[in-house]
């Protein structure tokens, strides 16, 4: 298929359709409104269903129902809307159902701003709902990667029985880049024999959420964590950029990693041996990347569009909180290349 120039928000909608998703439930919010707009016209063309819900809360609970009914189902929103969805995300996680949730993050907290941000890291990665749970969190840095990750998200969701969050931001949603759509399922997926379909002549199916006996509830949690352990073992993903001779490593994801990439070219021109570990999965966090490179690295330079929500994960991954320097902009500000170059020079000093 030839490449087409598409806005991120529309491209992720098309990616979902290509991956076989036929159900979308959502609510408008800037900067992701093109996702529901696009799917409202495109889903009916392929026999799918688009519902503009009365609220984010309703939308995620429609997702819960459709997921329980065995469908590939998508919702999308941006930060304040995702905050509203947390209840449902917890329920879907607890029920072990597959669903894909796109967050085109904007600056917060509260109503915040509509400009791009990365301050929902904790909400996505640490769990924004109640209880012990994890969702897989994928962090695309380009429109093409957003497309690929949305497609992969449906497979991961079905394979593990878990919500998958695609954590992008307003810039990726609004930006146009060339994309192509080549969906190939890389997981061996079993039929959803558990789904609510009406029992027919067989046994009834239930999707349960209340486990009132504490001992049973604990066992239920432990079963979830067996699944999470498998995910942590198998699904860590990251990009290594100019790491072979690197003595310093930026750690950055999504849009901020794009700025860092450009900053690295200036720093390399100035003689600094610096590379980047770019997490593509935020949960599971790519600890393996740090295991691999840590002995070469003098300092990690964590750059985010937040006040440093990823820092603790980097500290855990390299097992040395003193090895991390942080630079962040927040509230909808995308850092400029020069700011990152200056930050790099300050940390690395004359150490070329």
């Amino acid at each position: 298929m030839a490449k087409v120039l598409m806005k991120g928000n529309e491209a992720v909608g098309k990616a979902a359709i290509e991956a076989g998703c036929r159900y979308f439930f959502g609510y408008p919010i800037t900067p992701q409104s093109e996702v529901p707009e696009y799917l409202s016209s495109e889903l009916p063309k392929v026999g799918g269903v688009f519902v503009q819900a009365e609220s984010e809360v309703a939308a995620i609970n429609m997702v819960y129902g459709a997921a329980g009914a065995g469908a590939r189902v998508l919702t999308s929103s941006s930060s304040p809307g995702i905050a509203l969805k947390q209840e449902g995300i917890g329920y879907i996680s607890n029920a072990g159902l597959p669903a894909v949730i796109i967050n085109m993050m904007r600056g917060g907290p509260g109503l915040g701003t509509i400009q791009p941000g990365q301050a929902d890291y904790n909400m996505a990665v640490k769990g924004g709902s109640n209880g012990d749970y994890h969702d897989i969190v994928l962090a695309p840095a380009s429109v093409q990667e957003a497309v690929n990750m949305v497609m992969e998200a449906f497979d991961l969701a079905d394979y593990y029985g878990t919500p998958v969050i695609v954590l992008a931001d307003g810039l990726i949603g609004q930006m146009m880049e060339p994309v192509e759509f080549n969906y190939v399922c890389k997981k061996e997926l079993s039929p959803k024999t558990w789904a609510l379909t009406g029992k027919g002549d067989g046994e009834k199916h239930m999707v349960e959420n209340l486990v009132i006996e504490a001992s049973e509830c604990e066992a239920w949690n432990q079963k979830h964590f067996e699944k999470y352990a498998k995910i942590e073992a198998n699904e860590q993903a990251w990009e290594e950029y100019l790491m072979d001779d690197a003595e310093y490593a930026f750690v950055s994801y999504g849009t901020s990693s794009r700025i860092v990439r450009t900053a690295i070219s200036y720093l390399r021109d100035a003689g600094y041996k610096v590379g980047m570990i770019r997490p593509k999965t935020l949960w599971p966090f790519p600890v393996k990347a740090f295991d691999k490179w840590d002995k070469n690295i003098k300092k990690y330079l964590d750059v985010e569009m937040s006040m440093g929500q990823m820092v603790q994960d980097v500290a855990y991954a390299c097992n040395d909180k003193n090895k991390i320097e942080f630079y962040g902009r927040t509230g909808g500000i995308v850092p400029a290349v020069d700011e990152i170059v200056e930050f790099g020079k300050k940390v690395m000093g004359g150490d070329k």
Partner: protein
Amino acid sequence: MAVIFQKPKALTDVKLHYCPGCAHGIVHRLLAEVLEEMNDDKNAIAAVPVGCAVFANKYFNFDAIQCAHGRAPATATGIKRVHPNKLVVTYQGDGDLASIGTAEIVHAAARGEKITTIFINNGIYGMTGGQMAPTTLPGMKATTAKSGRDPKINGNPIRVCEMLSTLDGPAYIERVSVATPAQVTQAKKAIRKALEIQKQGLGFTFIEVVSSCPTNWGLTPVKAMEFVREKMIPYYPLGVYKDITAEEGK
């Protein structure tokens, strides 16, 4: 020996946890009987609430999902859109439906979502222990309105059938009760009518059951049924509030 009375096959053998005199058991049975008579228990999917009926999924012998508090109409929407040919039923109490889930029920009704909602209105929060509900009558005592609901302080009750009947989406809305044998018979007819209308794809259907909660009302089961007849029903009048099949026949 001839069997003259038995449990509907659409109910499981799990023992109900409801208090003596609670109407949930009656309404569960009515829904099960209707589904069995329609031969549709195999096609039914229930969305059950948070509240006393949270374990209804264990009692119904058909597919069911436990929903977040108040969200059953949204969750049922998701299910129905995936399986438009199945019978999707939400079963909700008054706190679930008329308080925390007001938006979900109003908009499912407004969209004309082809589901059936069974709404148990007993004017009190049962599961959490007798707090004021959106449908608690003026003067009625609750643990969060100890000297009785005072509309000046606690606001006024909501009459859901009346409110929903102003919308164009619903196809059938009826308020029934189960406080007399005749009312039980009528309630069953109403549930059957709602499910048949859903099956025909005509729109949203809604059956409110004015019900009792002897435990949290502090009454015996018999006195509680009297309270339903004497206090609840005058405030929540029984009857058909909307029926597009009758309108079509005019």
